[in-house]
């Protein structure tokens, strides 16, 4: 472990980059997934389209995506935007399905009674359907967060920063300590972000605790 202490500057910098590369896509991906998930849930063609498209995107090798993006979106080769866009695509591919499922799991009777009370569709979505979908969405975001944090490391193969750098460098220079430290840091990061998401989920859904209490 003394390798980490001797190189703490580098490790801190890489951790910071890693956070940016994974959290920004997570937030942006979620914000995009909500309207798409809504669409998927409302129209049968929307469902077919978004779910198949996101399913296909998910099968693309991440390494390839990092390299294709520059010619497609007109960025420079080493622009961090490439990683961020590529990871956003993955988060989106994961979360569209989750959001669609979460929304369709909102009990029809509750939606019907909201409609019957005079909610118009937009407001009903924001006030009733979305909040009730939160628990499932949070579960999906947790999965996406952990996968993203792990997947961002692949970017280092073509020169992007983040903790993956500790793998490529550990490989180049045959430093097992660096590789192991990198893995541990990625796990730690995933753990911390996951715990934060659980906490956010709790804060957003006080009624879930009431339900758990009532079951006892």
């Amino acid at each position: 472990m003394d390798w980490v202490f001797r190189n703490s500057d580098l490790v801190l910098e890489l951790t910071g980059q890693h956070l940016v590369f994974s959290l920004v896509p997570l937030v942006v991906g979620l914000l995009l997934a909500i309207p798409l998930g809504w669409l998927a849930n409302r129209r049968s063609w929307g469902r077919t389209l978004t779910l198949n498209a996101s399913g296909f995107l998910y099968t693309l090798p991440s390494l390839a995506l990092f390299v294709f993006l520059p010619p497609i979106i007109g960025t420079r080769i080493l622009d961090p935007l490439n990683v961020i866009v590529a990871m956003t695509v993955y988060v989106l591919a994961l979360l569209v399905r989750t959001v669609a499922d979460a929304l369709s799991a909102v009990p029809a009777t509750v939606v019907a009674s909201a409609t019957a009370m005079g909610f118009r569709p937009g407001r009903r979505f924001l006030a009733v359907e979305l909040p009730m979908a939160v628990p499932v969405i949070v579960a999906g975001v947790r999965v996406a967060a952990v996968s993203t944090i792990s997947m961002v490391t692949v970017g280092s193969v073509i020169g992007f920063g983040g903790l993956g750098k500790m793998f490529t460098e550990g490989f180049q220079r045959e430093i097992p300590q660096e590789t192991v430290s990198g893995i541990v840091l990625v796990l730690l990061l995933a753990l911390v972000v996951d715990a934060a998401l659980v906490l956010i989920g709790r804060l957003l859904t006080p009624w879930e605790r009431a339900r758990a209490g009532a079951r006892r």
Partner: protein
Amino acid sequence: MTWYLGWLVDPENWGGPEGIMVRLSEHLGYTTLTMLVAMVIALPLGAWIGHTGRGGFVVVALANALRALPTLGLLVLLFLAVGLGLLGPLIALVILAVPPLLAGTYSGVRNVDPAVVDAARGVGMRGPEVLWKVELPNALPLIIGGVRSAALQVISTATVAAYVGIGGLGRFIIDGLGQRDFGQMIGGSILVALLAVLADLVLGAVQRLLVSPGLRQARTTTGGPGLRLVRGERSEEEAA
């Protein structure tokens, strides 16, 4: 775009010892081997934990932790530990495939309607009979969902393993990167995606073949039709 696709349609790239056919069969081979090993580990474990209800918490925690393990880091570490060859990448890919399989099997067995399990005990089935005759057949949709999800991830991630020197379709991406040959990279990626779609379709057909029509009947009332490539996440969330 024709420039990129040119590589893919050029017959010269298909034959030969490093051609597409060889790489494709290597990729398929790695995937199959990985899935077999992972299933031998995860299916019995998941079924047993789901059946007894003991250790469910551990499964969820383990599945999540394994999911966070960066495959690239594992590949490198295993290269440093066991050297060049297939063993390192195989271990890394198995570790990747186990969480969705474990979660799918566990939650599949766990989510069987308790009334049905109760009835099975009520007619006098013993523990293993309940598992074999009732819980597993009913869990099959989620189990196969886990298999589909795992296969997808393995096919897509096996590309990264080319970084530590093994074959498969990932070679085209890594080599194309080294040679700055976009046609090769895009061609390789398209092949990976096609392979994934194909594998999913085949597994979907297997699912239709194996799952009792009685379960499909019940399911159609809730789930919509259509090709779904991303499977299994749902069940894992439910397990979480």
